[in-house]
């Protein structure tokens, strides 16, 4: 049995070496606090966060925040401006605009209708980006780690996908699959995968050269272990920032699709189609039905961008 070194000897040596008191790990709660610390130190990120949280909040608490539903029509009061009865006004069928806005936010951010009666939490934009992350990160890791033929083939396939203009890609997919929430998720995923895969691949190419990856290879760890346990967690900074931006792109894309008539079918409170419908009445003096959804899309996208920018700045500074 090798001789044991006394505890006291080590305490003396290490506390003098440590020099300053370091708070020990503390586990998960510590990590979350650390992440928020990064957020709070950037003003830009805070503004972005405020906007995004606002929309999430109103989407979640929609039923409480308005007494109307998104579908209630009032033919006696079409195209009204803001008033005491309707905070933001009404559209051409007399539906309350505020209600339609926040219920519209619901589908995008909070609830995904899976079938006639079922739904799962998280909206179309969030689910779309999430699935794109899973698939894209896997492809990026595979290409970056293995290199060689696999990398070449994967990248050329993804290049081909990226060569098609995004809106056209969305159009084709929606036209082929039909308009429903799930199909919107699929469309967002397909559009998002190549970009994410590229990002993860370039991060992998860099991280792969680190010595801890070589140490894992020396231990005979499997490729999957190395990719997902050793490499991926160290790429999370840029990936999170990119994901946030993509949620913004997705919302913007859905707005465009809705505007072109390819979004959720009416009477669903799709922001894009609200703009399309409302457009006809702008010149008649009732810009409200078109304006509010525009403000909503713009603010949410800007909010996400600010949040992503702020996070990126902070994580860059940290490095």
């Amino acid at each position: 049995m090798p001789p044991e070194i006394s505890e006291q000897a080590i305490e003396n040596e290490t506390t003098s070496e440590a020099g300053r008191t370091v708070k020990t790990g503390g586990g998960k709660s510590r990590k979350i606090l650390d992440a928020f610390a990064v957020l709070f130190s950037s003003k830009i990120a805070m503004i972005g966060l405020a906007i995004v949280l606002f929309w999430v909040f109103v989407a979640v608490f929609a039923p409480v925040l308005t007494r109307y539903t998104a579908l209630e029509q009032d033919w006696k009061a079409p195209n009204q401006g803001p008033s005491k009865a309707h905070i933001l006004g009404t559209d051409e069928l007399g539906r309350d605009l505020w209600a339609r806005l926040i219920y519209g936010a619901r589908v995008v951010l909070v609830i995904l209708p899976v079938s006639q009666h079922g739904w799962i939490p998280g909206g179309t934009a969030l689910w779309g980006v999430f699935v794109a992350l899973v698939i894209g990160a896997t492809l990026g890791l595979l290409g970056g780690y293995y290199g060689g033929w696999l990398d070449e083939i994967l990248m050329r396939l993804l290049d081909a996908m990226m060569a098609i203009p995004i809106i056209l890609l969305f159009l084709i997919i929606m036209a082929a699959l039909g308009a429903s929430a799930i199909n919107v998720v699929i469309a967002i995923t397909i559009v998002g995968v190549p970009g994410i895969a590229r990002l993860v691949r370039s991060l992998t190419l860099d991280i792969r050269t680190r010595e801890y990856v070589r140490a894992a290879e020396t231990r005979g760890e499997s490729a999957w272990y190395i990719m997902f346990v050793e490499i991926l967690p160290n790429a999370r900074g840029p990936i999170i920032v990119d994901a946030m931006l993509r949620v913004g792109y997705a919302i913007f894309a859905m707005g465009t699709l809705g505007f072109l008539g390819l979004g959720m079918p009416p009477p669903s409170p799709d922001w894009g189609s609200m703009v399309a419908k409302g457009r006809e009445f702008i010149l008649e003096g009732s810009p409200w039905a078109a304006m509010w959804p525009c403000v909503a899309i713009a603010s949410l996208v800007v909010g996400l961008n600010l949040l992503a920018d702020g996070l990126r700045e902070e994580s860059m500074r940290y490095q």
Partner: protein
Amino acid sequence: MNQFENTQTVLEVDDLSIAYETRKGDVKAVRDVSFLVREGETVGLVGESGCGKSTIAYGLVNFLGPNGKITGGNVHFQGENLVGRSEDELKKLRGDRIAMVFQDPMQALNPSVRVGEQLTEVLTFHQDVAQKEAWKRSVQMLKRVHMPDPEDVMNRYTHQISGGQQQRVVIAMAMLNNPALLIMDEPTTALDVTVEAAVLDLLEELKRDFQTANIFITHNLGVVARVSDYLCVMYAGELVERGAIREIFHQPRHPYTMGLLASVPRLGESKRDSVLHPIQGRVPSPARRPEDECIFAPRCDYATEKCRAARPSLQEITEGHFSRCIFAGEIEARQKKGKDRRKIPALESTAQEYSQSDETILSLDNLKVYYPQESGSIVSMFGLGEKKYVKAVDDISVRLSKGRTLGVVGESGCGKSTLVKGLIGLEKVTEGDLEFLGVDVTEEVSARDTKLIREMQMVFQNPDSTLNPSYPVGKQIARPIRKFKTVPRNQVKEEVLRILRAVRLGPAYYDRLPRQLSGGEKQRVGIARALASRPDLIICDEPVSALDVSVQAAVINMLLEIQRVYGSSMIFIAHDLSVVRYFSDDIAVMYLGQIMEIGPAEAIYDPPYHPYTEALLSAVPIPDPEAEQKEIRLGGDVPSALNPPSGCRFHTRCPRRHDMLPDGGKICEEQSPPWQQGEKGHRILCHIPIETLSTVDPVVHRKS
């Protein structure tokens, strides 16, 4: 020191303080530093990372970046104060009367501009010299720095010349305007030992010819002993000792200097007869440096309450020798009681202490690892062209016995990293036999048996990237334990704590993240991780090269303890010959993919030498200004491994073959050399007979 008494003072630094602005306020990087530099004198500025030596260098010419500023003191250059001057005025000085040479020549030279243009620019910008005249003078200067083919080099790009040549170009650029002051920041750290020796020779020559005042910044005590006349020792932003070089090495008067000198192995010392004393603790970060006490007190063996009461001032002990320690005068007496480098000879025999036996655990036979050269041509894509290989490891045969340590030395391009990769299975073995614990292991890691993998583990070079930043220390050490199932599941945490104790880290480290650890601590965790599977063989790939000198000693001692306590065999790769000699039982010297000399450690450092080993030993800077060292220098460059020289690989640069062989050494160009057998398993790959090789003088003499 007195040779400079009557020469002009070129630079006088007076109580210089430099700080950096950060979000949390000003951080003092340098505090009250004073020294002077005279014409023709070289002042060495030595210290570990974070001590502020580079900051001073940049501060002198106000190169501090957007958030650095000089907060106090004066810098008098040729009588004029530089502090507070405008950027335009300083620009005129930089490159003209004050020149700088940086560490990495690849970064100092512009990769997209030809060498000639970069040189002439120095003259045309500062002195309004005509282009033709500037060209002529540049070529002359290149000849002065012993650049082969100077006219040709003028037309080349930076990447077309070697590292040593690039540094010569940088030096030439610095000297072109005949500056009064030359500041050199680690100019040879990035170079191989033999190239470094040649560049240091050049610097000595230039110093004699041009009488430039020099500031030479480095962390390497050996280099500074060679080049400086006067030495300033920095610690944590403060100047703790300064004096003539011989005096400081002979009689250091500050505990930090003494600690530094005690923690570096001298060439020729081995683990059996001397001990390294690391300096306990770590350097305080700039934000946490106490203002009213001796900055070294927390780590000092001689510290008392008085040391923490007030900041000591710089006292003059003997003429020109200053120390910032209140006990400086008495330290000599204390030193005799303190760190004795000699070890009391152990009562048991050495073999028992380092449980060695004759059982072979690793054997390499004619091992070859070749890389196919990637050629982009279409012909090669179809497999039609001639295949070219980079012969990184070319025919190596070695045996390693249980419990022994094999040191592998060589410069860049010798193939030692490839050898390691081949051993551990990260690279495919092209030809030859490799047997570990009796089992053939020529396949890659993925094809090897788990039981074998766990017996061969590795310690890596760079402490900053050896640990995964996303997981705490405990988890990373636990992984190999879990994977190789060395203990049952419920005992894993205990085992991790036990291993942490073995590398002298307390249980508090279990939950810490790598970024909370210092370089030395991270390296120890790396060692702990390698130990976790209780391997029979540990391969250490330059484990201490990236660490500060005082920390190196602690890690080396740690590895020694592991050798003793666990009886592991080790392969130790390094380029620092003193460290390798200290640590290893046997040493192999590699050149261009082959072993040139191999044998017990003592045998390598005394004659007979392989001519390459002799040149390597002549080139190692020794931290002892009294030691006399031979000056054998190699000409030319390391040949490419794509096309190694015929016959003996070393023949293109061998300084001995013309004198020691009949026919001027023609046989070296035609035939591969045989193994010359020496004593106790020592063998040399050379045509020169071993009797002749034994007649040369040893490389290092001590003037005692």
